[in-house]
């Protein structure tokens, strides 16, 4: 779904919640006249279960789209191994292969990206602009943060992730 220039995606979890509550409402309204009398506000409330995640996704994607150019200008291309806790808060760019993807169903994907020097978690708090799959070669832009805000190993708060052509990466390495 597209709102303005922003491609909005609803998470599987939000859809599942909507479907479950729709079934509940259907069953309840068939069996209870009292529930049927309340449908005038129950149906809008049900749709809010979809509208709120859509609105949140739209806002976060627009925010990320706005800040990406600043990261493109400021981020330094580094090897994964060089990212350490002294770099907390620094914008970085890494290039590597997506080894694993977690929490995609929550619209909060976490990519494990590896280069020749090591691997690092790249946490994204919204959906990426393009579909990313395991084994894709990607460029990640983001900020070095701690895994759990105040504690934990350094990870990347991913602002942008996009696929790279393997030939481009090899040319850069050469």
């Amino acid at each position: 779904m597209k709102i303005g220039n922003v491609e909005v995606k609803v998470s599987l979890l939000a859809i599942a919640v909507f479907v479950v509550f729709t079934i509940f409402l259907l069953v309840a309204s068939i069996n209870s006249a009292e529930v049927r009398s309340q449908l005038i506000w129950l149906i809008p409330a049900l749709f809010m279960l979809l509208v709120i995640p859509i609105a949140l996704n739209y806002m976060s994607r627009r925010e990320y789209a706005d800040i990406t150019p600043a990261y493109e200008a400021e981020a330094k291309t580094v090897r994964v191994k060089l990212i350490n806790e002294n770099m907390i808060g620094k914008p970085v760019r890494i290039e590597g292969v997506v080894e694993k993807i977690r929490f995609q169903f929550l619209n909060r994907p976490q990519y494990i990206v590896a280069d020749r020097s090591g691997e690092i978690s790249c946490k994204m708090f919204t959906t990426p602009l393009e579909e990313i799959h395991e084994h894709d070669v990607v460029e990640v832009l983001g900020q070095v943060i701690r895994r759990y805000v105040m504690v934990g190993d350094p990870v990347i708060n991913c602002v942008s992730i996009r696929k790279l052509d393997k030939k481009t990466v090899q040319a850069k390495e050469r």
Partner: protein
Amino acid sequence: MSSPVVTANNTSQNTKSYELAVPVLSFGGAALAIFLWVSGLAGDVRYTIAGCLVASCILAYLAWIRPKKDIVALTTPVYSIIFFAMPLDEPVATITLELLYAVSLSILLVRLKSRFGEAAVAREEGTLSGPLADYVDKIKPACTAIPPAGAHRAAVTFLRYASGEYGDVPDEARDGVLALDGSGCAPAFKTAFEILAEQAVITEKSQPVPEWYKQFASADEPLLARPLPPQKKKTDGYDDGFDAALDNALLLLFAAAWNGSEADRGYLFKADAFATRVIEG
């Protein structure tokens, strides 16, 4: 450098005891509950949940002391407090819950060990350990000729690079080279400053790896942490030499700073996890 080893051994033994305590306490609590219920002895079966409570606190501690934190293991005490605060009335239900919880804690312990690595080794403040300590010790004799100003510049240059302040590295490295002039120290130290300066500029400007770049000479090899790679690119065009030069330069400057500038050790100690990561590859 012997005391950290003792501390590491003690930590390892303590960690093993704590790991053993997780299943022992959780299943022990469940076994006690079964014993109380079967024998009909006086005593509330629900209090045996305390075994799971203590076991989950130990599991959370084991998760906390690892460099890589496991949020699932860290939050297990919350669930056990809920079980403990709101016990079930039926002994069978309590025992079933305890057994399932004990199995869950044991699975989480195995997961913690397999996926989140070993516990961080407790070390004395201001001491290094592992391969980094060995390397720093190995090149100590070569560092005696480095003047204090040069060692301090090595510390500042290393720390600036570690902090991602690449724009400041060339100036610091230039001052380092000047400080080493006429000191009679091995030329590898000067080369390390030059490599770091060159690579910091490349990183600052996000430039691709150049065809020609500063490298250590084969005569420098005895002072380097890792051997010089063969002078040819891999089949996919990747050049090991560029990354190896940076790793060796970072480690050489860290060792020079550690051995030559005691005043900077506190700052270097805060970056030793980074240096360890570089040396362990």
